[in-house]
């Protein structure tokens, strides 16, 4: 329930507990932002410390959080850190098979699960997808644990983004469902995820729904990882899969899947079957391919930052392929440079704000918006709970972190919305 002490307090007196990587651009960015606003430095609890088994309260004390203080807890992205990735996969192993209460769509089993021991023995292979579904299971177990431990240690503590909502945002299937239920504009679903058991099931659904062009997404990928723009020509039966996903297939053991630098279009059915089968095994979200607005012949999408009910920084990404959110080969533009009309931009912002209201216990997210080239209707493609790392862009003269923090200083009393019980855990 609400915590009047917390809301009335001087923001300079509320400690920020940051669960993140000890070093890195995000942590540095947040530190810098707090400094620029005259706010005290965050107490940083590294993911590694928590994953080594240290309870949250103990790790917070180690980080310097004064005893008796009630922190605001902010989680940042756990990615791009192999030791953390490996530890999360280990946490998702059968040895830890409990604490899945925050895992969305938990009726399904992960394919070829790694034991804890096997997970911890994984070696870093930079572009390889290690075990997305077991990683996500582990991440959700960590979220549940943090939610639980925070409630025990500081019954009045608030999360910046609620762990249960982070889990839903991260799972594209659950996120799509949540957004649709909230009346937010999302691309039409190809089929309920439970039905998409493999290549044949995907093709059958496409044929039955007459949805010949779809985006197939790994349910918990980040950015363009594990995304396939897939189409079947209803007249000729020809199929095309445009993706950066690649496979090395073996007879005796599971294949190796990785993200290549180049986006390629595959036309061989067996190759395509392998990739789609992999996505289905781990969890597939499939939706209609929205023909996106383009700048020249480069399709674009928008990353719109939203915090405390306001739309802030907006970045346009223009790709050379249908997959616009690739880090590689995408070009970043301002909305003005991309020639997006004010009306479309306003509609996109409105939709991003609507998407955020589907997550009332979370303060901010980077929301990916597609604009249909026919009619310019906006669609929400993704809600990224950690989508605020936007470089070299300012709003109201502030970088994204500083803007978020200043929004928090002035608008935290409206947040979370009254009556929200956080995290599915009874606070």
């Amino acid at each position, binding site marked *: 329930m609400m915590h009047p002490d917390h809301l009335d307090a001087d923001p300079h007196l509320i400690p920020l507990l940051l669960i993140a990587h000890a070093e890195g651009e995000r942590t540095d960015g947040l530190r810098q932002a707090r400094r620029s606003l005259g706010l005290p430095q965050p107490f940083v609890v590294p993911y590694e410390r928590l994953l080594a088994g240290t309870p949250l309260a103990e790790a917070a004390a180690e980080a310097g959080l004064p005893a008796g203080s009630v922190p605001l807890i902010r989680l940042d992205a756990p990615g791009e850190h192999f030791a953390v990735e490996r530890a999360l996969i280990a946490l998702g192993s059968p040895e830890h098979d409990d604490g899945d209460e925050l895992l969305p769509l938990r009726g399904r089993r992960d394919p070829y699960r790694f034991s804890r021991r096997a997970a911890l023995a994984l070696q870093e292979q930079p572009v390889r997808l290690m075990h997305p579904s077991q990683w996500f299971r582990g991440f959700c177990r960590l979220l549940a644990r943090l939610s639980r431990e925070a409630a025990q240690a500081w019954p009045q503590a608030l999360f910046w983004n609620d762990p249960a909502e982070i889990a839903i945002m991260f799972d594209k299937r659950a996120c799509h469902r949540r957004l649709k239920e909230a009346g937010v504009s999302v691309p039409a679903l190809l089929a309920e995820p439970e039905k998409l058991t493999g290549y044949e099931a995907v093709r059958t659904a496409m044929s039955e729904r007459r949805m010949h062009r779809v985006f197939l997404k790994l349910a918990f990928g980040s950015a363009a990882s594990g995304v396939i723009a897939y189409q079947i020509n209803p007249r000729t039966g020809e199929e095309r899969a445009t993706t950066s996903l690649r496979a090395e297939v073996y007879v005796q053991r599971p294949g190796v899947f990785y993200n290549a630098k180049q986006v390629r279009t595959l036309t061989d059915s067996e190759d395509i079957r392998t990739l789609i089968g992999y996505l289905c095994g781990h969890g597939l979200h499939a939706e209609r391919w929205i023909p996106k607005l*383009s700048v020249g012949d480069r399709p674009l999408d928008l990353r719109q930052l939203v915090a405390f009910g306001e739309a802030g920084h907006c970045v346009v990404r223009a790709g050379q392929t249908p997959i616009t959110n690739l880090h590689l080969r995408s070009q970043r533009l301002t909305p003005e440079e991309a020639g997006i009309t004010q009306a479309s931009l306003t509609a996109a912002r409105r939709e991003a704000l609507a998407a955020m209201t589907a997550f009332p216990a979370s303060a901010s997210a980077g929301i990916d918006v597609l604009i249909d080239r*026919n009619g310019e209707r906006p669609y929400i493609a993704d809600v990224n709970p950690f989508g605020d790392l936007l470089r070299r862009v300012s709003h109201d003269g502030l970088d994204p972190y500083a803007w978020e923090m200043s929004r928090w200083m002035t608008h935290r009393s409206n947040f979370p919305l009254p009556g929200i019980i956080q995290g599915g855990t009874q606070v």
Partner: protein
Amino acid sequence: MTEIKLSLGYEDYEDGKNMVEMLEQLADKPEAAALSRLIIGDWGGSYENSSADVVAALVRLSTKFPALRSLFIGDMSYEECEVSWIIQSDLNPLFAAYPELTSLTIKGSTDLSLGQISHEKLEELIIICGGLGKGVLQSIAQAHLPALQKLELYIGVENYGFDATLEEVMAVAKPGLFPKLTYLGLKDSEIQDEIAAAIAQSTLLDTLDTLDLSEGTLSDVGAEALLASEKIRRLPHLDLHFHYMSEEMMTRITAELPNADVSDRQDVDEYDGEEYRYPSLTE
């Protein structure tokens, strides 16, 4: 000049709307009389329905568009339909129905035919596709287009319908065929080097303003043939952008052919020890 683009999105198409109705509605509006440029985008499931109904409607409604000078049939991006999946049709009736037309652009070559082309006023003919069939090339090589100034053809690759020989391609560039021709584009080809070599010494170049060999697989081989030609050196504009020339060759071209655009150099794809070069529109 007034311009209108008609395009039918997926939702509208699945809801039963169709392009023929959209054309009829446009024809009934007062602005139809002044319309000078009409762009037809996705006509609804363009990968399963041909442009035949659109062409028939345009022919039937031609008197409603007396000012129409420029027509584009099939303006859609790969976000809407793969270029090789766009189903065209016999566009020949358009030539008789619109005798005042000066510019015709076509995107997509599947099932495309142009028949016996005869048009006194057409100045521009542009075909954008993944692979141009020999039937269309023959129609152009035998066309009566005395006013034609710009001919721009995406030649493409065999996979997407290119099935002509080099001779059949070069037949459209026969000197004297189009006496007013100033812009020739034979581009986006997987035999771009051969085309470059075949055109390099043609007397057609004496009257051209621009030769466009861009967007294809042009390598040092084709570039050598171009460098060896006095006629190429005298051309006002040589468009070679999107190419596979080496850095050294680019330096030479830049120094010796200041008329050339050599931007957008591509890296050769290597895969299992084989080298692959792809034209721009067919990658």
